[in-house]
């Protein structure tokens, strides 16, 4: 009789629209936050931070961003990698131009700059729909990568054409550069994830989210009942690119430390994020977490089992990864287009009725 709404009466609209309407969920949420902030930082080491936690957290931000654009507003983008590159290069230029400023400001500004670029490439979305738009975002992907490759100003004329993150701090704690402690990387990213997920949740449950979903579900009807389509789509592009830009900035400065644009932010990156939101769940905040976790953990697991456990060559594991990911995408789209998040929801609905399902 634990997992129930019964007896938990809502007496105001505020209570009715809260994120976790069931008490057990709320308890679980706060417990998870406590573990994430108070337990994990004391046990984390470099392997766990670099292989699992930091990429997971950063991909969550990117997935949230793409989910806002694709899952909520219905505009498929294949340019996520390119927009992440904008965030990364903006962050790099800011870091090297203003060394004293806090890293938090740099990351936020990088997000803002990416939002502007996103709006620019979102402008055609008023006239171009569906996968026509997907191709328009491909234009952004290829053009941006080319730009960062060909214009030396962006990488400060370095001989290798790479960008390297110098050592920067937040409140005196080193968060970038080779001397960063694992827990500092982890906590820095975690804070961004928690705040941005909260913002994404707020936006999607309010009027902005309803306008996005209205455009997604039936754009003509949405316009006739009063949604300004250009404004709605551009806010989606702006918010989404803000998230993606922050993810790009963190990916470069915290996770990689050094990046070459074609390798770190190529078209493969765009697809990776698309897969995260399909497997996790389109139009779901929880899905962005689940999808990112899945896509980060699966290769690690495969590698540990096949290469570490059974002694297979690494390229076999890589091929199998392609097969598994591709197969799962198709299976999810056939069986459960709303992804892992929907499976979780269904499980909870069953639990709510258990043990008397009728």
């Amino acid at each position, binding site marked *: 009789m634990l997992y129930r709404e019964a007896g938990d009466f809502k007496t105001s609209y505020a209570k009715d629209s809260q994120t976790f309407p069931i008490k057990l969920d709320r308890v679980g949420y706060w417990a998870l936050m406590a573990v994430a902030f108070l337990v994990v930082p004391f046990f984390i080491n470099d392997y766990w931070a670099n292989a699992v936690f930091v990429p997971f957290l950063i991909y969550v931000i990117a997935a949230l961003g793409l989910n806002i654009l694709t899952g909520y507003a219905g505009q498929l983008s294949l340019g996520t990698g390119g927009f992440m590159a904008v965030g990364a290069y903006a962050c790099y230029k800011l870091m090297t131009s203003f060394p004293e400023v806090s890293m938090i400001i740099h990351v936020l500004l990088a997000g803002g700059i990416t939002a502007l670029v996103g709006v620019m490439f979102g402008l055609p979305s008023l006239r171009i729909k569906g996968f026509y738009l997907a191709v328009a975002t491909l234009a952004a992907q290829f053009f941006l990568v080319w730009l960062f490759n060909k214009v030396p100003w962006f990488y400060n004329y370095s001989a290798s054409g790479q960008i390297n993150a110098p050592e920067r701090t937040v409140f005196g704690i080193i968060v970038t550069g080779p001397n960063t402690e694992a827990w500092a990387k982890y906590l820095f990213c975690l804070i961004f994830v928690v705040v941005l997920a909260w913002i994404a949740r707020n936006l999607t449950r309010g009027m902005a989210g309803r306008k996005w979903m209205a455009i997604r579900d039936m754009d*003509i009807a949405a316009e006739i009942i009063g*949604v300004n389509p250009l404004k709605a789509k551009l806010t989606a592009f702006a918010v989404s690119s803000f998230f993606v830009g922050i993810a790009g900035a963190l990916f470069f400065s915290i996770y990689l430390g050094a990046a070459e644009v074609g390798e770190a932010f190529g078209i493969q990156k765009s697809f990776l994020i698309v897969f995260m939101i399909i497997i996790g769940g389109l139009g779901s905040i929880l899905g962005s977490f689940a999808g990112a976790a899945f896509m980060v953990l699966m290769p690690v697991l495969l590698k540990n089992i096949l290469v570490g456990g059974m002694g297979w060559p690494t390229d076999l594991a890589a091929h199998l990864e392609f097969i598994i990911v591709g197969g799962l995408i198709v299976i999810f789209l056939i069986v459960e287009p709303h992804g892992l998040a929907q499976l979780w929801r269904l499980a909870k609905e069953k639990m709510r009725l258990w043990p008397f399902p009728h």
Partner: protein
Amino acid sequence: MTNAATDMNAAPSPDSYVTADGRTIGGVVMEMKNITLRFGGVVAIKDISFDIREGEIRAIIGPNGAGKSSMLNVISGFYKPQEGDVFFHGEKRPLMKPYQVAQQGIARTFQNIALFDGMSVLDNIMTGRLNNMNASLISQAVWWGKAQKEEFENREKVEKVIDFLEIQAIRKTPVGRLPYGLKKRVELARALAAEPTLLLLDEPMAGMNVEEKEDMSRFILDVNDEFGTTIALIEHDMGVVMDLSDRVVVMDYGKKIGDGTPDEVRNNQDVIDAYLGVAHD
């Protein structure tokens, strides 16, 4: 044309009257003047003029393909007529995007239900309130201040509409799971939530059984009666149209062939010909 426009500005209108059942019908709210709409070579609407008066239920009828839905689309700004003007509250309406028309207080339902399938019933109806909510994106992002206040104020209005249309039980159900009749009702709720001055209903009773039709008719009459909403509706069921409406426009092949009270229209020879066919000799 300008004369007519200035005439309509006079309020209270000199030609307002009280119907048999005690409702007051005011002056002209919306006037369509010599509207012609073409798609390539096809003429969908040919030189049609009619008006809609405040507080009345105005029906548009006609055989399939007569151009009724196109007419409604012209009113809501979705189709732009090649010729003719639309006057709203006595003023000539400039070229407008559909969302600007909605902001003027014109709400509508659609012939083939156009609900947002991925959202809950409550969220669908809340979208009807979007013209009354203008909290900034930042305020919405932090769920604080104006955004939150607005959300709950408008939620209260929406709850009233939900009570009015008796759909409390399905509030949180995703719209995609609802049966046809309820979807139609939710769509009406979404339009009503906007508190429109002019409500356009495109075949609100299509595909319904007798019982559902009776329910819907009652809701339409109640809306008109309680909120004084002006309603323009398209309907095929003649019995319903004759019972509900104050005045009827009859269209055939894009032309207007009749206009007047249900009794007048019923006895109009052109209308009888259009519906029953006419012997050519």
